């Protein structure tokens, strides 16, 4: 009797109360960052004023953050001259051991100032603070740390005895992982004994300019790292400069092809990290809940602004319905909003131009007859936003299965047999990445042997490490970055891709 009473009371009090758990705003403070009203270039160890300027904005709010210099041919000239002088007079005279110690210093300072860089990257790029804090910036430091250790071990890199650097490397990087792409370029170049002239992307130059301060704090010899900001014309000036024999470019396939044509009759070497339309293959024996996480991570991480994004879900037909249902439930938990809020999962689209492209291609998807779905999202009024979106009923013949959208848009296709999955995955001019979801080891190795992709993730996605080579087959580019393989591009007497 006592039991019944207690139970009834318990039920009366606790029954039927509908709970919600709203997360209050949890903004990361901007106070740690101090942005100058105007920036010049970083040449020969100091900041020099630029002549023409253009604004750089916070894509989440459209607020102008600063004015960036538009580098011209003469700025590039000065930078290359500084890099050449630094190579001849100081950098090439240092032993690998000493070069390595400069890179260790840079790595440690980046770790010390990690929070500052994370906030700045979020402001300039629009990606969530959780990603810059937990993924981008730690990887940046790790890249410098890893490559610091190679500087005095190049004899062991499998490139022969005493491989030699080129001298000055011209490096052009994209806006999707601004500081990380800088690390991928600068760290191996310096470790192998080269000096650099680097151009960050138009919309995201701030962390590169702050990196210049780190070079100063590390007492890096003047001219070893030079940073010239600007637009496509600045990049072209670097590519065409007679003093640069080694080019490293990450960006669109279209521009990559331009570069390949531009250097065709020269003896310049280039590595190119270009676009992709990664196939994420989910077999019927996949660990389903983790596969759903992997699908979400594959296309919504970094707002889908990822060359190796899993932008095509190639799903075994027998489990398609179950997986799509779970995917939709999972997508409705994606938090879209203020990138500086620690609980935001999906930030702003980097620029108005990019947002237009995403909207255009999504409209194409509608026109091609695919079924579009997005969860309910309250998108802010200012800034550039796009809700996470999937298109089901997509086929290989659709443009949204072939063209890179570079946004949070997933195209879903189905397959019946393993061979069909491989064929669909490979049926593209791109070849950067692929994902395989299965609990069967032999199937994973079989698929990885058949997939024409430079990076293959099994039961995971979008994982990066300085020790793991990255790069694509076919039109996804030339060469690899990271790992022992990534050193080759910066050393003569080493294996070169796309070289004569």
């Amino acid at each position: 009797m006592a039991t019944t009473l207690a139970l009834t009371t318990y039920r009366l009090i606790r029954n039927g109360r509908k709970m919600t758990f709203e997360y209050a705003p949890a903004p990361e403070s901007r106070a740690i960052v101090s942005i100058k009203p105007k920036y010049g270039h970083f040449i020969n160890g100091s900041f020099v004023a630029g002549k023409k300027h253009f604004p750089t904005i916070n894509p989440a709010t459209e607020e102008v953050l600063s004015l960036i210099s538009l580098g011209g041919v003469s700025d590039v000239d000065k930078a290359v001259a500084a890099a050449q002088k630094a190579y001849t007079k100081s950098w090439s005279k240092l032993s690998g051991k000493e070069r390595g110690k400069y890179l260790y210093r840079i790595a440690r300072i980046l770790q010390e100032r990690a929070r500052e860089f994370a906030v700045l990257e979020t402001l300039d790029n629009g990606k969530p603070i959780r990603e810059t804090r937990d993924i981008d910036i730690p990887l940046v430091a790790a890249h410098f740390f890893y490559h610091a250790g190679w500087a005095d071990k190049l004899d062991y890199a499998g490139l022969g005895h005493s491989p030699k650097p080129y001298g000055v490397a011209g490096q052009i990087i994209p806006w999707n992982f601004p500081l990380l792409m800088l690390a991928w370029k600068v760290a191996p170049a310096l470790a192998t004994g080269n000096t650099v002239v680097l151009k960050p992307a138009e919309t995201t130059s701030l962390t590169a300019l702050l990196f210049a301060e780190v070079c100063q704090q590390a007492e890096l010899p003047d001219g070893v790292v030079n940073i010239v900001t600007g637009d496509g014309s600045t990049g072209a000036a670097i590519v065409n400069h007679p003093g640069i024999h080694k080019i490293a470019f990450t960006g669109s396939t279209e521009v990559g092809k331009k570069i390949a044509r531009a250097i065709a009759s020269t003896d310049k070497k280039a590595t190119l990290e270009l676009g992709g339309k990664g196939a994420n293959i989910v077999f019927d024996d996949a660990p389903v809940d983790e596969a759903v996480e992997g699908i979400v991570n594959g296309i919504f991480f970094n707002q889908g602004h990822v060359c190796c994004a899993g932008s095509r879900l190639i799903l075994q037909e027998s489990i398609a319905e179950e997986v799509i249902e779970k995917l939709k439930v999972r997508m409705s938990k994606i938090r879209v909003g203020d990138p500086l809020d620690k609980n935001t999962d999906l930030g702003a689209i980097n620029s108005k131009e990019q947002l237009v492209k995403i909207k255009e291609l999504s409209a194409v998807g509608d026109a091609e007859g695919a079924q579009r779905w997005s969860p309910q999202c309250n998108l802010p009024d200012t800034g550039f936003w796009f809700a996470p979106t999937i298109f089901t009923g997509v086929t290989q013949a659709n443009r949204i299965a072939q063209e890179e959208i570079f946004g949070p848009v997933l195209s879903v296709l189905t397959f019946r047999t393993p061979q069909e999955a491989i064929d669909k995955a490979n049926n593209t001019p791109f070849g950067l990445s692929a994902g395989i979801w299965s609990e069967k080891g032999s199937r994973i190795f079989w698929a990885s042997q058949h997939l024409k992709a430079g990076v293959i993730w099994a039961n995971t996605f979008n994982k990066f490490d300085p020790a793991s080579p990255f790069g694509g087959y076919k039109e996804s580019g030339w060469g690899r970055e990271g790992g022992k393989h990534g050193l080759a591009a910066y050393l003569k007497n080493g294996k070169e891709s796309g070289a004569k």
Partner: protein
Amino acid sequence: MSFYGLVDGSEKSLLKFLDQLSGVDQVGAESRAAMLATRSIKTTSKKWAIDTAISMVDLTTLEGADTPGKVRALCSKAVRPDPTDPTVPSVGAICVYNDMVEIARTHLDAIGGKHVPVAAVSTAFPSGRASMEVKIQDTQDAINAGAAEIDMVIDRGAFLSGKYGLVFDEIVKIREICGEKVHLKVIFETGELVTYDNVRKASYLAMLAGADFIKTSTGKVAPAATPPVVLVMLEAVRDFYTLTQRKIGVKPAGGIRTTKDAIKQLVLVNETAGPDWLTPQLFRIGASALLNDLLMQRMKMSDGYYASPNYVSID
């Protein structure tokens, strides 16, 4: 019993069902749990989370040295965790050994705690190593003494040697004894099951056999209620609801000592099973030291400065 129409009660039918369950990728499950642990819960949502967590605590004492005095002190704390602040909610339940149930129930009723149920651990808790007769008697004794909830342990030896039918039958038996009125929680001892695949299997097995709640651990073995284990169990109850329209509760127990830990659990619930589960009816936290940390954090939120253990009572 109809077993939701999904199995027929035979081991063969059970094995067939368990076999078609998807596996759990350890790396994927752990990284999802780790990502959810980065959620930053502040200000109003933190206040709400603290109070919710308090109302979900199954305040526990399961020691050989338990005495009537100890149990009464725990009951007082359970009803009014902070004697100086009546806005602090009571806890979700008291959890004791079956020979302390009557003392707990009597004392709770005497101090205005009629709304706080008494849960008893049973079936030869914590090891589960005894005859079925003993386990049945253990359960019956607790119910007779006034327990509104039974926290039973599964036979891990049987589970690990593949005797799933035996594990299932034991739960069914205890379910029968509990009847409709007594609320049954089934403890897996996930630290002994080790793999997430096993946790998923055990979750479905227990739900099919009639559990009202699935519970991670006895609190006597580490690791206990790690976030990825709780994640896998929340996924199981979420999917079970899709299958059967029945909502089963989850109770992590063991190793949840700080407010931060508790809030991480609530985030897991919120973003996995969903907000419907954010009620003591469907989520409990088995803990003892946690309550004081929740109280100290609650004080800090209302006072605006950091608290000290001197200002919360020991039980």
